[in-house]
């Protein structure tokens, strides 16, 4: 399922906005535009965008100020900053405040297009837990939020059946007395980029295994009964990191 993306481009440089708009249009991704932070803020408030790309250096309200304003009304909205001034202090600030990335001008169009295509994909989660009800109820909750969910009640053939475009795995640490550590290792080997969030009911019993799991780069561990808000927060963090990775920003950060 490919949904149509709603993108907002913001820059006080009309030619930059015009060329970007035409490029994305001809590539099949029409975009909205704004020439100032104020205009963009209004549009972002009134309409639902999937992503905003904004220049940093703009008069009256700069890109970072705009981002902070948008963050307060639409915290989940991914914002990408762009700039010609790679050493600007605002670059660092923007990243610290949670912008997905800061891109250097001239932009690499292909990278952005790839980024858009990732945005377009629905977020998919795989749940691995032997408790069927747990899986089903969690699936329903996640689907309501727009996630595509698959679940597995045992480790059997998990690796083989896992869809390659799965973005996150929620893994129970102990299924039928078998430890999830081995599974984790196998998953890591086949899908090194796939974030795995551990779940368990047995905090103390599994603590040493959890420690080991975290050492082999499981993302984090959540304890049953699951706090849904915490889960959404973790999923949001992971999504943010994945988007940032795609843009692999070339500006501001040291290698």
């Amino acid at each position, binding site marked *: 399922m490919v949904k149509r993306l709603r993108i907002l481009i913001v820059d006080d440089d009309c030619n*930059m906005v015009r060329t970007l708009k035409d490029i994305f249009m001809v590539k099949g991704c029409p975009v909205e535009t704004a020439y100032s932070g104020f205009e963009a803020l209004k549009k972002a408030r009134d309409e639902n965008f999937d992503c905003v790309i904004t220049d940093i250096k703009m008069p009256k309200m700069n890109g970072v100020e705009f981002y902070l304003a948008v963050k307060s009304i639409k915290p989940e909205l991914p914002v990408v900053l762009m700039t*010609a*001034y790679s050493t600007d202090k605002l670059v660092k600030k923007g990243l610290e405040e949670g912008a997905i990335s800061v891109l250097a001008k*001239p932009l690499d*169009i292909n990278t952005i297009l790839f980024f858009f295509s990732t945005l377009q994909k629905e977020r998919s989660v795989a749940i691995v837990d032997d408790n069927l009800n747990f899986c089903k109820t969690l699936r329903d909750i996640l689907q309501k939020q727009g996630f595509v969910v698959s679940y597995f009640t045992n480790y059997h053939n998990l690796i083989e059946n896992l869809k390659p475009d799965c973005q996150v795995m929620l893994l129970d640490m102990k299924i039928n007395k078998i430890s999830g550590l081995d599974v984790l290792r196998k998953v890591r080997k086949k899908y090194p980029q796939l974030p795995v969030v551990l779940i368990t009911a047995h905090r103390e019993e599994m603590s040493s295994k959890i420690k080991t799991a975290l050492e082999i780069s499981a993302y984090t561990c959540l304890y049953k009964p699951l706090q849904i808000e915490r889960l959404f927060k973790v999923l949001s963090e992971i999504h943010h990191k994945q988007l940032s990775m795609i843009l692999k920003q070339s500006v501001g950060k040291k290698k």
Partner: protein
Amino acid sequence: MISIGKISIKSESSIVEARNKIYVLAQDLKFDIISTTRLATITSQLVRGMVKKGKEFTLKVWLDQREGGFGLVLEFPLKKIKDAVSIEMLNAVFDSVEISQGEDRFEYIETFKYLPDSDFKPTKEFIAKIKKQIERLPIEELCNKLQEAYTKLKRAEEKQREYSQNLEDMVEERTKRTKELQDAQDELVRKGKLAILGQLAGGVGHELQNPLGVISNAVYYLKTILSDADETTREYLDLIASEVHDSEKIILGLLDLSRTNPAIREEVAISELIELALDKQPPSENVKIDTKIPKDIPLVYIDPQQIGQVMFNLIVNAYQAMPEGGILNIKANSDKEKVYISIADTGCGISDENMKKIFDPLFTTRAWGIGLGLSVSKNLVEVNGGNIEVESQEGKGSTFTVILPIKEI
């Protein structure tokens, strides 16, 4: 009156001197022992009186011919005769005593005593002899005077030598300080220039990114919608895209120059940095690369991005010095504290007069390029606790040695 001489009375020692001289004179004039002693004693007393008062004066001595023959004349200037000697005493010793008042408020006593020999006739030789005796400085005083003079001279010589040495030292010190000051000033000017240029480069570089961004987008767009255009159109679009790409590289080069980040140091293998630089800018066909970096060379404690840039600059410079081809020799060795990396080319070399300028900003012997590469490299190396040295022979080649620190334990 025949002047025999003057005895200068200055100090206590003059008392003895005067007495002795009068004694000897009296002897020569054939006075008997008692008269001689009396004459000497009176002289001594009169002189003592004045000396005690701290007065300096001159005792004059003559020979005079009067009615009874020749006589000895002594003249004493005194302030208060009464304090010095009694007139009776004077009258007892001398044949005549005359006291007169001088303009200088001295009382002058002139005493006259007939010589015992009434047939005395002063010959030239005799007069000369007694004159000499009066004028002669007593041996001790002479010796003392000589000693004093000698000591003064020696001291003066010593002082002069000291001053002379001092002066030399001061001049040397001053010259050294002046040179140090000059060097520091030159360095400041160089760094100042570099900072300004860096800022300018950064400003210009960043400003250019904006229009370049738009051009880049425009070309991308045109290429997309004109993907089925004729070959020439597509070639032209590729051309624009490629020129934009080159411009981007130049700008990035400019921005490198403006970077003023502090060195973030870590332990790095110098061989890796050199490999990276060689990969980034592979040599042309006619340049042979010869690297000799020992496997056990210690890690250097530097910022890899900055020193990587330095290596890149030096290697590119080396290539550019050998447009007709040559050998690029990269060697490394180390001691307890530092690693020495030498990058040598067999190119055109650097003339003596240019040697002083090569690290100056904006200095270049090429027809293109800005001339900031070496000054930036020097800056980066110094900020990382190192140094760059250069040796060169015009026509033979140049060797740049980068000295980098090893991490202190």
